[in-house]
């Protein structure tokens, strides 16, 4: 599928997912799991303690340093589960 078409499809699916409430539903499942695994608190505490000693304090630097590594620290089981939710939705929409 040409890249431009993929982008159009992505935009449409994303809009439909949000308007139907599915996006927020999956987001709340994700948040609950990330909280229970301790990932949310690690990001919160890690970035706060980093900011405490950062000189000069810069949001941009803190944002970049934090976001560059947190995605890799999400437990695999959570990633798989959320991907499967998303996949199921897309299959349902494009069948």
């Amino acid at each position, binding site marked *: 599928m040409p890249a431009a078409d993929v982008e159009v499809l992505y*935009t449409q699916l994303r809009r439909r997912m949000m*308007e139907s*409430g599915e996006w927020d539903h999956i987001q709340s499942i994700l948040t609950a799991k990330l909280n229970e695994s301790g990932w949310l608190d690690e990001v919160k505490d890690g970035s706060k303690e980093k900011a405490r000693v950062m000189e000069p304090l810069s949001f941009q630097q803190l944002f970049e340093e934090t976001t560059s590594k947190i995605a890799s620290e999400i437990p695999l089981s959570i990633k798989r589960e959320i991907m499967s939710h998303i996949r199921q939705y897309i299959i349902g929409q494009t069948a």
Partner: protein
Amino acid sequence: MVHEAVECTHIGSLLEEQESEDALLTKLKTVVAWNVNRYQSVKNPAKRRKIAFPACGTCGLSLSRPFSCLNCSYIGCWSEDHVSSHLSDEGHTFCADVKSGSVFCSECDDFIYDPRIDDAYVTAVITAEERQTKFQVAKKPRESFKPWIPNAKEAAALEGATATPCQGRRGLLNLGQTCFLNVVLQCLVHNPLLRNYFLGDKHNSKQCKIEENCTCCEMDKLFSEIYSDDTSPYGPITFLATTWRASAELSGYAQQDAHECFISVLNQIHSTSRGSTNVSCNCIIHSTFAGQLQSDVKCERCGNVTSTVDPMLDISLELKAKGGEIISGENTLAACLRRFTQPEKLGAKDYSCDKCGKVSHGASKRLSIRKLPPVLSFQFKRFEHKTADKSSARKIDAPIRFPSSLNMAPFTTVAMRETEKDSGGAAPSYPGPDAMYEYDLFAVINHEGQINNGHYTNFARFQDEWYRFDDDKVTHSSLGTCLKSAAYMCFYVKRHLDYKPYVTPSYVLMRETEAVREKELEKEKEAARMKEVEDALLATV
């Protein structure tokens, strides 16, 4: 390491002008309220029309985390500099993250802070949440939060007063194996509702009518000591003595269980509170800690459900399964709560149904939280007593992971009922807003060692900073350190309090009725006396 707060002069000058201040804050409040309402309509399938989601003004994607320009109607993504490019292209200065209310200044090229902005954000969120809350009982509307504005008399009284910071920290001396009491006291002192009650002079130990053994007076004195200028460690000698006299089981020089002490102190504060009652009490303890547990017993044969409601001051969580083995796998607070609320089979011989009478199929029992208290206290049952003799007890050391924020919705009666009704994986809907179910950790009690030669320490939070307390030693700590510690008890406070309309306490009403009745009696007596005098006079004529 302490940064000097750098002020954004751009927001400062804008907020000086009434008109531009109104425009900015109104815009901010509108977008923040929109965001709060969006989550609610998503949760309620009955109300769910197609929700219109804003699309980024630059790339057209539907935005899950919109940033709103505070100068015009542009909304966009933070990523790829969409919104900041808009700001520089149009010469607009400020934009805001609608979820957190964080305001970004393009001139400073940074997020900025101003108390007026924080105020506007909190007000907008609370107002939007209040409008969404429908109480189950009698569909009464939720009482709106009204900030306190001093009247003329109060303002005059404040004129000469010195403002004291609302934070106080002081170590507590170990008076001989009393660390169990010290950790309980620190957790009570750092409890925002108890702190506000006692700092608000609601139980003045100098005016209290109770002659001796008043634990409320001891709490009042403790707060005075902790919030005094003296930072040297304090020895809670009279508190300990009062606790001994009130609770024989806690007396003696041996180490005691902090949870037993906690419950005992709560009961002592309750019984020495003015106007406390045995049923539906609204003393400071019950207002703070009292929740309700519902137990539903379902007959396996006919499906008839019998529900009982019991009061609770805290939740004790088992660390062992029925068979006696220590739980493996998920060692989290949420997992403990799931086990707490899972259906449990009742033996056939223990149950007979009111409706169908058959005893053969047995029943299942399920616990759920019917009413959430403002402060939730959890205890992990680490000490198992093999026999009645405490000295042969064993300690379960398995660490349990607990979060800094907790959403209690899945464990409430109202949400569990919805989930049962609904089949399939659709989003369960329960009365919102979510904030009513969200709690933040503020204190943790730790125990290290074995039962007979262990030591209690605790963590407690003030606003965003965490501190560690080890009897007389108080040190600054971090959230991470607290979360890595082995917890015995955890204390959570509701993020936003929900108020119901003020009702005059029953003991005040009774007092007023008594006063009225006494006046009536006096009048009658006086009239009777006057009549006697008259009769006597007439008799002499």
